[in-house]
């Protein structure tokens, strides 16, 4: 029996998941294809919407700043409405695991690099630690973890002029692991409270060398996994201070937690998920896609659908590929504009306004990828998330927001068309 759905979503990150949920909400049957683990385990788990425009930030209200973005930016294509729509999907998915939904304004969160950054939604474990909330803060790092150095981060925050006192201490984790144990191993020990790890950790902090009369204590995000709330509560209780987490780089527990939330929501919405095999091509007739070809261990299997959403990510997720001469979208061979001289793809300054950061397909006003003549490649193909060009999500701090807004739009439109 051939595989056939109303809507087929290619890609399992934030954009793909949101598109699948939005399509599902229209009553369409939906299948989501995901190849590998999403790039969320490398992401902080924060949901940024817009934190800077052309290097100018931090922005307090992202919605007021959208008009300053270039015309070809995905936000300008789908509009503020779609950002709100995307955030609505996210808030439904995240429930009380995330905060920030009470306002359009960005919060400022601490990063593991000792900086602050603007974000729209943040895990509830991060919420007590906002830099935009004044409360004296003790940062705690671990002697064996190299990614976060609490005294350095504290000094960095002080240099930023945060409206509170901040100090940092380094303690030994109460249980000795191999020297290069990662945060995930520490989280597990706290989760299971191995050897009274929670109590001993609180004890080490109470004994730590600081003169600060702190209101809250921040840790790199490793305070448990399955029983994270219980870990935080117990530590807060023992320390007599609020306890919060600071988002980290890979492996990011908060990013993985977000991935779990999304997949639970997909299950609940009845989205069918096919994981583990790559989409490699397509069949089309009369300007419409008929199926997407999936390589199942060397065998080409067509997945039929009335509407398709491309949400395969950008350069990191391999939704956009390149070689020495050109930049391409590998599944549908959609047009990806790029300078012919590859040295024009990047700037001299490491944090410059790199063209490569904005590489991606060019959508029409209905998010359909267009060819060089600005005509849609296929009537029934829409794109969402990192595969779209025109946004430098790294400098803008807009990655999750672009995925949510365009995912919500593309999924809804695909569902509407398929069920019309």
């Amino acid at each position, binding site marked *: 029996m051939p595989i056939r759905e109303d809507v087929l979503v290619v890609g399992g990150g934030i954009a793909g998941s949101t598109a699948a949920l939005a399509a599902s909400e229209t009553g369409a049957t939906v299948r989501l294809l995901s190849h590998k683990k999403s790039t969320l385990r490398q992401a902080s788990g924060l949901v940024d919407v817009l934190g800077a425009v052309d290097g100018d930030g931090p922005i307090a209200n992202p919605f007021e700043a959208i008009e300053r973005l270039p015309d070809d930016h995905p936000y300008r294509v789908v509009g503020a409405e779609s950002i709100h729509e995307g955030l609505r999907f996210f808030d439904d998915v995240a429930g009380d695991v995330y905060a920030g939904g009470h306002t359009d304004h960005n919060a400022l969160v601490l990063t593991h690099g000792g900086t602050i950054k603007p974000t729209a939604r943040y895990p509830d474990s991060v919420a007590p630690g906002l830099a935009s909330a004044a409360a004296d803060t003790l940062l705690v790092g671990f002697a064996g973890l190299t990614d976060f150095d609490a005294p350095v981060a504290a000094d960095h925050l002080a240099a930023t002029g945060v409206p509170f006192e901040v100090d940092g201490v380094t303690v030994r984790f109460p249980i000795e692991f191999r020297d290069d144990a990662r945060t995930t191993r520490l989280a597990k020990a706290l989760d299971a409270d191995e050897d009274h790890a929670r109590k001993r950790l609180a004890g080490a902090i109470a004994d730590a060398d*600081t003169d600060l009369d702190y209101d809250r204590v921040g840790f790199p995000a490793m305070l448990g996994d399955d029983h994270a709330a219980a870990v935080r509560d117990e530590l807060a209780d023992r320390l007599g201070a609020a306890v919060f987490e600071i988002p980290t780089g890979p492996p990011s527990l908060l990013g993985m937690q977000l991935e779990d939330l999304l997949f639970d929501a997909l299950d609940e919405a009845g989205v069918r998920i096919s994981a583990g095999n790559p989409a490699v091509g397509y069949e089309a007739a009369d300007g419409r896609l008929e199926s997407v070809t999936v390589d199942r261990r060397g065998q080409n299997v067509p997945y039929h659908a009335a509407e398709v959403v491309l949400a395969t990510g950008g350069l990191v997720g391999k939704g956009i590929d390149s070689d020495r001469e050109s930049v391409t979208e590998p599944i549908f061979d959609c047009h990806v504009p790029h300078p012919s001289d590859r040295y024009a793809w990047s700037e001299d300054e*490491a944090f410059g306004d790199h063209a490569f950061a904005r590489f991606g397909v060019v959508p029409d006003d209905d998010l359909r990828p267009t060819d060089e003549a600005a005509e849609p490649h296929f009537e029934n193909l829409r794109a969402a998330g990192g595969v779209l060009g025109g946004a430098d999500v790294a400098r803008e701090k807009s990655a999750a927001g672009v995925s949510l807004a365009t995912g919500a739009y593309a999924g809804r439109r695909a569902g509407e068309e398929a069920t019309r």
Partner: protein
Amino acid sequence: MSKRSRVLVIGGGSTGCGIARDLAMRGVDVTLVEKGNLTHGTTGRMHGLLHSGGRYAVSDQASAEECIQENRVLRRIASHCVEMTGGLFVQRPEDADEYFEQKLDGCRECGIPAEVLSAAEAREIEPYLAEDIERAIRVPDGAIDPFRLCVANAADAVEHGARVETHSEVTDVLVEDGEVVGVEVEHAAGSGKYVHGHPGETEKLYADYVVNATGAWAGQIGEMAGVEVAVRPSKGVMTIMNVRQVDTVINRCRPKGDADIVVPHETTCILGTTDEEVEDPEDYPEEGWEVDLMIDTLSELVPILDEARTIRSFWGVRPLYEPPEVGSEDPTDITRDFFLLDHDERDGLPGMASIVGGKLTTYRMMAEQISDHVCEKLGVDAECHTAEEPLPGSEDFSVLREWMDEFGLRSPIGKRSAQRLGSRTDEVLGEWDGPNPTVCECEAVTRAEINDAIDDAGSELNAVRLRTRASMGNCQGAFCCHRMANELSPEYDESVARKALDDLYQERWKGERHALWGEQLSQAMLKHLLHATTMNRDGDPAKTDEPVDFTAFDAGPDGEAAAGNGQRSEDAVADGGITDETNAGEGAADADS
């Protein structure tokens, strides 16, 4: 302020450090000055080939003989800097038989062990060689780490009483009564045990004899003394691959040409190179076509290079020299031999000599000759021992040990550390107190090794990188640049660590730009996201004067109250004031190390 020593050496590359070591071992009071870090110039920008001499066996037999001689010396005195990979001169169908025979005869005439291999035998050693190769000559080429070599020479010089000054640029050569009597240097910002001056400060350093060992920069120093040293700087590109496609040095067996060598180096391979004369050794174009030329031409020898991932490219400048009367048009025709220019004899300016030309493989021999010359001038009667005495790190080193058990490191990490540190392994890893996590995963560099390098090099992370290879692997520092900066604490301030991080990040980016396509572009975007998005390092308000209006931002679902949620109990406050033994001890250990 002024200081006096018997000999002053200008240039902290392999030659200068080699001279400082040689003279210091002979008991001569010597000071070395370098404008940047050690290896700042050409030494830090070479392909890492330990020549067998095979490359010069037809065109320049004098150089070839010196190479094989020094190749044997370095294997003995610098074993922890050398990997004896062996080398092949590979003939393709379009390459002349006659040249192949000349190469073989030349090697034999110069005393270079050479053995002819059939195509099948060569491909058995290196399976990725092209299927249509004709045959190959096997020679004892190897790989050498120029940074480690240079630092070991400097360390040994200091051990023998020399003074080494980095970040000290010579701004003038002092001539009094028609004789060179010293130099004036200007100090730049820097830290570590080789930095003694303060930024912006100038200092006159007097000496009985001055040695100009500045390679491609020798003409500039000569000018300050009023003598002409006609160095002909020639640039060459080197492209670094993400893995070792070959484990043997692969040379194309044909007369001089661009893009004819692949050198396996640590975890990577380095493709080289070009040979093009430039005006200024510090300002020349670095162009994409040069990178493409490496990949396209060397793919003829090793086809998988065409599709393989490169992680960056860099350029170096050879300090070529030939006596002005030779007048070669093409830089590839200029001899690779070295020349000692006695400015007294040559220009009537006593008190100074320049050493020009040559190559890293023969650095020690160059240093010996110039040290002999200096000793003769100064009337010092002492023998050279640099060919017999191993460098620090290469003494009595037995690799037959279980590093994992001994230092709590996983085997591959311990092994790589031990390879880099050689006989210093015990000192660096063994004496480290506290957890010793891996800071750079690509190159397997642990905290102990990073801190050892910081001790030596100070807060400049690029110098730490050169000593340890941290941030030089596939991810180009995406995962470890900030970790390296964290290791500067608590010895250095946060502002110093932040500046060092920015400098390292920018230095890495410079070379990455030459490899931005395919996998490496994907890697670069991930790095951009980790540092700009996750850490907001590009929008860091701490770097600007503009204050942030914190009140304009979301203060949490419960507003101000969220922050006040957990008022500290009286007990906890009381406890918090007590200094904990464990933590105090840890801090002290960090500061001592």
